[in-house]
């Protein structure tokens, strides 16, 4: 405990409050990796000090000094005892390192799944994330909501992942190591944040032009907050009279071929589900804050914010643009 506090104090001093540091773990997998990494640092650090120290000593002690006679030093061709010792000691270190690593590999990847675990299906897309909660009937994008997991009664979230196009990788450093999201392959990982909060991450496998702006936001909600979020997401899309014109524009255009708004004719799956768009803090996979101005700009020309994104500029006139933006902001 003391060691952990010291390390985190040093960490804050050295790096500030970095939201994505692997050294401020906030979930079980990240914690066990952190502990293991400290052990590995200790061993490799010691090896470094010993070997580099010897090297430095040899370089200084045996440097050619002015006034040297020019006679060659004694030639030594080898020594079996010494060579055996520096073969055996590394072998022992390797065995220790391997056993400690293997333990963490198995406790993380072969851990039994608790009954109360939440299931989420993660689908990587060029350049955004789709999150589906099959048992709750929720579909959302880019912002993953999970309940906090009390260590005594764990309610981890199991992510079942695959890709709709190229390879991606799901990485939220404070919660867990990364797991690749690969087409035609299903991978599973789990996270269990213990304290409520927002955890940031991003795609960590090069997936195309906008790999850099394929960000991830994980919201760990308290049980009551999570229940409230679920209740709201399960409701059908809000219909409001003053957005009717915008809705008509939306449905007249190709928007509906790519986007879903539950309960309407919009059933496209190429882009993010927009049913509860206004409940999200960001758009375009975390690239922009979800404000009316950004929404308007985005629909007008996504390339301006995220060059290479797969949503085409829709070339709406100013009037329609305003109407659609208005409609989007009502989708709570």
């Amino acid at each position, binding site marked *: 405990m003391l060691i952990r506090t010291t390390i985190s104090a040093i960490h804050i001093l050295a790096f500030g409050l970095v*939201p994505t*540091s692997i050294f401020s773990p906030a979930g079980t997998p990240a914690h066990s990796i952190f502990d293991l990494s400290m052990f590995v640092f200790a061993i490799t650090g010691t090896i470094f000090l010993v070997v580099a120290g010897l090297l430095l000593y040899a370089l200084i002690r045996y440097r050619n000094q002015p006034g040297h006679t020019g006679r060659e030093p004694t030639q030594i061709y080898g020594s079996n005892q010494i*060579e055996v010792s520096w073969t055996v000691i590394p072998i022992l270190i390797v065995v220790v390192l391997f056993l400690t690593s293997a333990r963490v590999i198995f406790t993380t990847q072969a851990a039994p799944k608790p009954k109360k675990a939440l299931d989420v299906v993660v689908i990587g897309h060029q350049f955004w994330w789709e999150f589906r909660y099959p048992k709750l009937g929720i579909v959302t994008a880019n912002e993953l909501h999970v309940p906090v997991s009390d260590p005594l009664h764990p309610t981890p979230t199991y992510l079942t992942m695959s890709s709709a196009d190229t390879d991606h990788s799901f990485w939220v450093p404070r919660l867990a190591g990364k797991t690749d999201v*690969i087409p*035609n392959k299903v991978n599973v990982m789990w996270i269990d944040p213990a304290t409520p909060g927002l955890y940031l991450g991003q795609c960590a496998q*090069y997936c195309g032009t906008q790999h850099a702006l394929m960000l991830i936001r994980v919201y760990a909600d308290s049980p009551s907050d999570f229940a409230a979020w679920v209740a709201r997401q399960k409701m059908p899309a809000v219909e409001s009279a003053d957005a009717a014109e915008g809705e008509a524009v939306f449905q007249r255009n190709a928007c509906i071929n790519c986007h879903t708004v539950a309960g309407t004719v919009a059933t496209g799956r190429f882009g993010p589900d927009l049913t509860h768009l206004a409940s999200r803090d960001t758009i375009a996979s975390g690239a922009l804050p979800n404000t009316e101005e950004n929404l308007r700009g985005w629909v007008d020309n996504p390339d301006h914010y995220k*060059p290479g994104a797969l949503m085409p500029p829709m070339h709406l006139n100013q009037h329609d643009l305003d109407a659609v933006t208005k409609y989007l902001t009502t989708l709570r």
Partner: protein
Amino acid sequence: MATQTPVSPVADRTTALRPSGRMLEVLHEWVTTVDHKKIGLMYIAYALVFMLIAGVQALLMRIQLAVPNNHFVSPQEFNRLFTMHGTTMVFFVGMPILFGFGNYLVPLMIGARDMAFPRLNAFSFWIAGFGGLLLYFSYFAGSGLYAAGTAPDVGWFAYAPLTARAFSPGHSTDYWTLGVLLSGIGTIGTALNIVTTTICMRCPGMKMSRMPLLVWLYFVTCCMVFVAVSPLTAAQIMLMIDRYLGGHFFDTQAGGSAVLWMHFFWIFGHPEVYILVLPAFGFANEIIPVFSRKAIFGYPAMVGATVGIGFISLSVWAHHMFSVGLGPGANAFFTFATMVISVPTGIKIFNWLATLWGGNIHFTTSMMFAVGFLFQFLIAGLTGIMLSVAPFDWQLTGSYFVVAHFHYVLVGAILFMIFSAFYYWFPKMSGRVLVEKLGKWHFWLFLIGFHLTFDFMHIPGMLGMPRRIYTYEADRGWAMWNMIISSGAVLQAIAILIFVYNMVWSYFKGPVAGPDPWDAWTLEWTTTSPPPAYNFAVLPTVESRRPLWDLKHPEDPDSNYE
């Protein structure tokens, strides 16, 4: 003890034909040459040109990343930059420069007059060279000759299905495939040549157990080339079948496997690291003893460790795939195999340390680069151990930590040793010594630049910065580190310019070298600098690992101890 000293030019049949300096004839002579030394020099020159190009690409990337939310290059351009930088540095700088030295040195060091297959040698060089040109031709023709060109942007390991036609329309990916394929064919040809030369062309008395370690290292490297480069070549052909003949090996949209490509690529890619680093070890094995004035410590262990590394390196590839979801069993296996490789590698470091111990160390520029290599390779090895710990790797893989780690190997170890080799063998190749004063400037600037860039690069990786992103948010706390990293890159660039200047200046005006400027011990130093065509008028005969030591110390020859 009849080691042969300089050769009369009578044996040099080409002298009579040598053109009287007319440009075209000189050009003709180089283009048609089958002389291993000329081919070696062409490999090196070719690699240096590409090194400058890929270096500029690195600089552009570092400008882009120096500050958050930068718009210096577009995302598309950035993705092309890192693809071309990586591909160029591995296939068209690293491989040719090492094969250049190998071509030049292996026959000289085993007392042979040329490679076993001189024509195959020329073919291999030209085909690999053509591969590089083809890759760069994509800048003009990547979208087909009718449209503007673009370079490939799939990354140097070109993961499927990004290379499928659905995601990579146009021809840029094809130029990448063909360029790498041709370079692979050239590589296999040269490897075959070096292996045959080593087995068949050694001079009288040079048993395998008396070969200079450099030759051993090249021998093992080239054996690995057969096993490692062939899968890559096969994968490139499969990719072309996918793209043009309706195959579905890697085409995930038709049931193909993205993971299959990863296996193919890393079965090549990991041994490739050792293919690049073993020759660098070879340079260290020659240079460190000479400037410590001591025989290499533990020759048999060095050979054993090399062969060991060669074999083990074939069973570690999936440590590049710890996050792919291969399951805990596979992750544990590859963790173990990867850690095991640190044992023979450790043996090498300890043997170099023991070689220095009790020596009389001369800090020439060449030796200083070799010393830099020792420290940096130590660190690279230790970060490698961190990455071999699969759970730790789940955090570090795909991040800037990995980029820092492998640049520590490729630049901190391999490139430092290549510089060391330049300072050491340039006199043999050109007849003139590189100016030491410029060399020291080159060394110190490069050293500082290197550490600014690559030491600090580990940090953003651990703070969550993935590789291959063209920009990043300001609130992540990565900005300061990236600024430091980029400033180091500038220092390295200046150092390289000094080095290039030094080579040009010294070639014309440097101090004359004579046959043996370092008071060294291997056969290449018995010939004139540069050596005549066909190297040795009379083949030398050797009785130990250090024939020139025996010659210089007849009262206490090595042959008494081996």
